[in-house]
């Protein structure tokens, strides 16, 4: 059975909440029922059928033909199946995801994969700030799963992350891995200043160095660790290029000593 396709009719005049359009929530619904699902975030009613031309198919594979910066909460809370967006998305894509695969062809706004528990999110373009991070008032960010950003990520990538893996193939803004509780953040490009700001535990790879490392991180020498080759094998299917580089020796900085100092930043053996 082919995918269930939502083709964008015209650009939305308000921000829309696409969280209802996930495989588990659409399971068993007829085309008219799906078309009647409300997506508005203002007082102006907007249903799925108004925004999209719907071609019925397997609800386990949802395809959005065309995206928009106003597409908020795409795949939020999804538990299984696949969602592909051929275009950009707004805030909180894949927030609190518990399984399945979310693929975004364009750029994602802030808080993508926020608080995610399991599953895979792939963003072909750039990601906004606080990818994987918690919303204001929440104490924990990403709790599991894998996020791959082919482009750059904004500030505070992996904020308060507790478990799981974020791979950024491009650069990140300032404070990547801020307040990390645990988990792994791998940045292929250069990171903005102060990676691992106030991190307790967890691992950050700043593969191309950082604009500025906090003096509260202590140099622990250059090591070729078995754990990194295990991580490389795990990363291989998501990002072969990053996996290959990961197998090199890395300089290990431990910190943030401003808090408990059990975290680590791996950076190039020779600082650049």
């Amino acid at each position, binding site marked *: 059975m082919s995918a269930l396709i939502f083709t964008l009719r015209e650009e939305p005049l308000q921000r829309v909440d696409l969280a209802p359009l996930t495989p588990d929530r659409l399971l068993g619904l007829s085309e008219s029922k799906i078309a009647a699902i409300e997506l508005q975030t203002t007082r102006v009613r907007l249903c799925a059928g108004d925004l999209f031309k719907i071609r019925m198919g397997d609800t386990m594979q949802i395809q959005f033909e065309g995206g928009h910066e106003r597409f908020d909460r795409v795949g939020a809370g999804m538990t299984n199946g696949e969602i592909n967006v051929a275009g950009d998305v707004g805030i909180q894509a894949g927030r609190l995801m518990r399984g399945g695969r979310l693929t975004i062809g364009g750029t994602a706004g802030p808080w993508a994969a926020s608080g995610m528990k399991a599953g895979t999110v792939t963003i072909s373009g750039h990601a906004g700030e606080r990818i994987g991070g918690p919303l204001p008032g929440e104490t924990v960010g990403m709790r*599991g799963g894998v996020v791959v950003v082919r482009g750059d990520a904004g500030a505070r990538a992996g904020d308060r992350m507790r*478990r*799981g*893996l974020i791979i950024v193939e491009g650069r990140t803004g300032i404070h990547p891995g801020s307040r990390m509780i*645990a988990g*792994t953040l791998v940045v292929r490009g250069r990171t903005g200043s102060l990676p691992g700001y106030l991190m307790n*535990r967890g*691992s950050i790879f700043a593969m191309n160095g950082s604009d500025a490392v906090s003096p509260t991180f202590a140099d622990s020498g250059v*090591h070729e*660790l*078995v*754990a990194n*080759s*295990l*991580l490389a*094998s*795990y990363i291989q299917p998501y990002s072969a290029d990053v996996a290959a580089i990961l197998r090199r020796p890395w300089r290990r900085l431990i910190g943030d000593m401003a808090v408990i100092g*059990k975290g*680590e930043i791996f950076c190039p053996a020779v600082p650049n």
Partner: protein
Amino acid sequence: MSQLTVNGIRVDDTFAEAFGMRATALTITAHSAAWAHQAAITMTGFATSVIGCGCEAGIDRSLKPDETPDGRPGVRVLLFAVSTSELQKQLQNRVGQCVLTSPGSACYAGLEAKEELKLGNALRFFGDGWQVSKRLGNRRYWRIPVMDGEFVCNATTGLTKDAVGGGNIIVMGASGETTLAATERAVEAIAAVPDVILPFPGGIVRSGSKVGSKYKGVIASTNDMFCPTLKGSGRSALDSDVASVLEIVIDGLTSTAVAEAMRAGMRAILTLGPERGALRITAGNYGGKLGPHHYHLKDLLP
């Protein structure tokens, strides 16, 4: 006892009687194959029989770098015990004292199973707070800082309750030399069978035992029926042409693996023939009432 003759070798129409055991498997890796073997040999030392060692353990096979989780050379080790608690205790002590201590080592689960034993979850405390947990997919690892870097191990390893211990072949020959030659051939052949180990020295036991003793409190004693120096005792099971007896004991993760190992061992012995090898083979049992697994030699003939 009725006998068959295959390639000039007498095969008793009897069976090996084996017992259910709890078992686990580990993959041990190191910078080189030699150091992986060293860790495995140390860990499986003094593990010939549950009677006196608490567990039976041995090397299943060597692993190429592309067969191990970290891409380094490795060894697969199997560990057998009579209860889950004893297996857990032996696993923790042996990995803690022999693998953790070995230069450059890492230790991974060698068996996927529903039930699990603690591996890193028991050893992590050695890290004294500096240990790091990493979860990659469904697998959790512990990284424990040690003096040459880090010791990495899985949090848990699989436990099987379908394991079998005590499959055996008893080899009889005209001299010590020919008997050993035949038994060595069998050991070599069994090494190629997956999921089994031969826990005794070099895979061979020369002091086969029977249950009980004339002495109070001794649970096992020499199998006098198979001692060639006691052929005249009146209880001997040996023929006049037999001057030496050796035994192979087999532990396997499954009953099928034990049967396959016995089949491979018998084939090697029978192929060698009586002039250079064994005159007769038999198997040890307790009348069939103690162990649930019976391996009839005639069913395992090549």
